[in-house]
C-alpha cells in the first residue's frame, strides 16, 4: 500500500506553557517539540502494515513551517520513506485539511492515516474534514487496523461509547488513530543515518485561508496548594469548604 501519514508537532508533554505578551501565540522559547503521539502511532502502524504485506511506501506530510523539519527527520529515521512539508502557517483545522486534500488529489495513496487529535489544540477535526474533501470513507479513532484478507479492504476496530466496534473499510480511506493501536518505535543510529539521504520535499501551499481568527489564549487558573486537616478537625474542614472553596 502507498500510505500517507499526516504528522503535526506538539510541545513536549512536560513543557510549561506560556503565551506571548498579547496572548495570541505560544511563547516558543525553550519549548521542545515532539511528534504528536497519536500521529506517531499512525506512522508506526503504517510501517507495520507495509512490513506485513511486504510492499508499498510510507510518506509523512506536515502543513507548517521549517521549524517542523526535525520531527519530519525523526519520522524518516523511524522508517518513513519520504517526507513532504506544505509551506503554510495554518490557523485552523479546515485550512490544514484543505491543503492536505489538494496535495493528496494529485497523488495516488491507498490509505491516509492521521492521529485522532493533536495533543496541543485537541480539535480532532483534520481526519474528518479530509475524508469529506476527498470523498473517501472515514474510520475514526481506530484501535486496530489489519488486512481484511481481501485486496483493497482493511479490518478496523474502533472505540465507541462504552465499547468497541469492528468494521471493514474499502480503500482508499482515511483512518484516525487512537492509543492501543501499536507501540511507538525508538529511532536507532542506522535509521537516523538512513534518514539523512531520504527526500524531504517542500511544496507550495494552495493559499487557502482560515475560517477562524484567534482572539486570545488563557491559562487555566493556577492550582491551589493542598491543605491537610487532621481527622478531628471536621468543623474546620467544613468551614473551609464553605467559606474558601465555596463548594458547600
Amino acid at each position: 500500500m502507498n500510505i500517507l501519514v499526516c504528522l503535526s508537532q506538539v510541545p513536549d508533554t512536560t513543557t510549561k506553557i506560556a503565551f506571548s505578551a498579547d496572548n495570541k501565540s505560544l511563547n516558543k522559547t525553550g519549548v521542545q517539540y515532539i511528534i504528536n503521539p497519536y500521529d506517531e502511532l499512525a506512522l508506526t502502524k503504517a510501517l507495520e502494515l507495509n512490513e506485513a504485506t511486504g510492499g508499498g511506501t510510507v510518506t509523512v506530510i506536515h502543513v507548517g513551517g521549517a521549524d517542523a523539519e526535525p520531527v519530519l527527520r525523526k519520522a524518516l529515521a523511524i522508517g518513513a520513506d519520504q517526507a513532504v512539508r506544505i509551506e503554510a502557517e495554518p490557523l485552523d483545522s479546515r485550512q490544514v485539511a484543505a491543503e492536505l486534500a489538494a496535495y493528496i488529489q494529485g497523488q495516488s495513496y491507498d490509505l491516509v492515516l492521521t492521529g485522532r487529535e493533536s495533543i496541543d489544540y485537541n480539535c480532532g477535526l483534520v481526519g474528518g474534514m479530509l475524508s469529506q474533501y476527498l470523498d473517501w470513507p472515514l474510520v475514526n479513532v481506530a484501535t486496530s487496523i489489519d488486512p481484511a484478507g481481501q485486496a483493497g479492504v482493511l479490518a478496523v476496530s474502533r472505540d465507541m461509547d462504552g465499547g468497541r466496534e469492528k468494521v471493514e473499510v474499502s480503500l482508499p480511506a482515511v483512518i484516525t488513530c487512537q492509543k492501543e493501536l501499536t507501540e511507538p518505535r525508538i529511532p536507532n543510529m542506522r535509521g537516523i543515518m538512513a534518514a539523512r539521504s531520504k527526500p524531504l520535499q517542500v511544496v507550495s501551499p494552495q493559499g487557502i485561508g482560515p475560517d477562524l481568527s484567534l482572539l486570545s489564549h488563557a491559562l487555566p487558573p493556577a492550582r491551589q496548594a493542598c491543605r491537610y486537616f487532621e481527622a478531628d478537625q471536621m468543623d474546620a474542614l467544613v468551614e473551609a469548604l464553605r467559606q474558601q472553596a465555596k463548594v458547600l
Partner: protein
Amino acid sequence: MRTDTYQHPDHYLVDELLTDEHRLIRDSVRQYVKKELSPIIEDYAQRAEFPKHIIPQLGAIGAFGPSLPAEYGCGGMDQISYGIIMQELERCDSGIRSTASVQGSLVMYPIYKYGSEEQRRKYLPKLATGEWMGCFGLTEPDHGSNPGGMTTNFVDKGDHYLLNGAKMWISNAPFADIAVVWAKDEAGKIRGIIVERGMEGFTTPETHNKWSLRASATGELVFSNVRVPKENLLPNISGLKGPLGCLDSARYGIAWGALGAAMDCYDSAKQYALQRIQFDKPIASFQLIQKKLAEMLTEITKGQLLCWRLGVLKNEDRATTAQISMAKRNSVEIALNIAREARQIHGGMGITGEYPIMRHMMNLESVVTYEGTHDIHLLITGMDLTGISAFR
C-alpha cells in the same frame, strides 16, 4: 525505583551548538533508557548482576561502535554523536556505559584501526549487533598504571602463537566471546591479539564483591598455553601506542559519560530540593542548598562546553591525548563531587536505591581509577605543559 523524569540542564544553551541530528540521537537514546533501563537498573546493581538481556537492545539502538563506518554494520556517526550516546547511557549507570565503551572503543576500534580487512569483516558486524561481545585485556595484577611493564607474552610456534599470562580487572570478561589482548612478542614488543572463547587454556573467572559498577561484569583473563591462530594477530600496530590509542577513544567517551552521571545527580537533587519541605519551606529555599545546586550547575556547564569543544576537535582529528586526558579527569572529578553533594541534599533518602545518587557515587569510584587514574591524568597534563614526565 521512582519514575525517571530526568531532563538535562542546559544553562548556556549548549543544545544550540548541536545539530538536529545530534538532538535526535540524544532524545532517542534517552527514550530507550527511560523505557528499558531506568526501571531495572537499580535492581540489577543491588544484585550485582549484569542485565545480559539488554545486549541486543544496545546493538539495535546502535550503541556499539556508532562512529565506525556503516560498511561494517556500524553507525557511521560523528564523534559528538558517540559522546552523546555515552552520556545518555552513563546518565543511567556507569556500568552500562562501560559495557558499551569497551565494546565500541576498546574492542571494535582496535579491530577497525589496527586489524586486517578479513578481521574487520569477520568481527565488526557481529560486534555491532551485540551477537558477539568483546573485552579488552591490558591491565595485569602487577601492571596497572604502568601497562608497558606487562608480562603476558606469546611465542611464535610456526603455524600458531602460544600465549601465556593473566589480565585482571577486565570489564565484560565473564561473558565476552572474544578478547583483544595486549601481550609481548619474543622481541618484547607489545602486540594486539584476538583470543576467542573456547580456545583451550583460556578462562575468564569473574571478580566478585565489587562495591562499584555492580551492574557491569568484571573478571580476569587467564592464558595458559593458549594456541592462537596467526591470523588473529592485529597486523597494523606494535608498541604501547596500540592500547593507548584505544584508551584515547574510550576516555573521550568517558568525558561525556561521567558528565551524564553528574547531570543525573544534579537533576535529582534539584527536584528533591524543590519538593522536600523542612521548617515549612522547600529546602531549595535555603542558601546552603542553593549554593550546592548553583555550584553543581556551574561545573556541569563548564564540563558541557569542554566536552563539546573536544568533540569538535575529535571530529577534525585534532584532539590530543593530553586534551582528552584533561576532559576525562575533569568530568569524573566534578561528577564525584556533585554525587557527594547531591547525596547530602537528599538527606537519608540519598543512601537508598529509591534515588540513583549512591549508585552513581560508587560507580564513579571505578571510573576515576580505570582508563588512567585521576593522578596519572594530572601527570599527563603536567608532562604536556612542562615536557617532563613525572610518572616514569
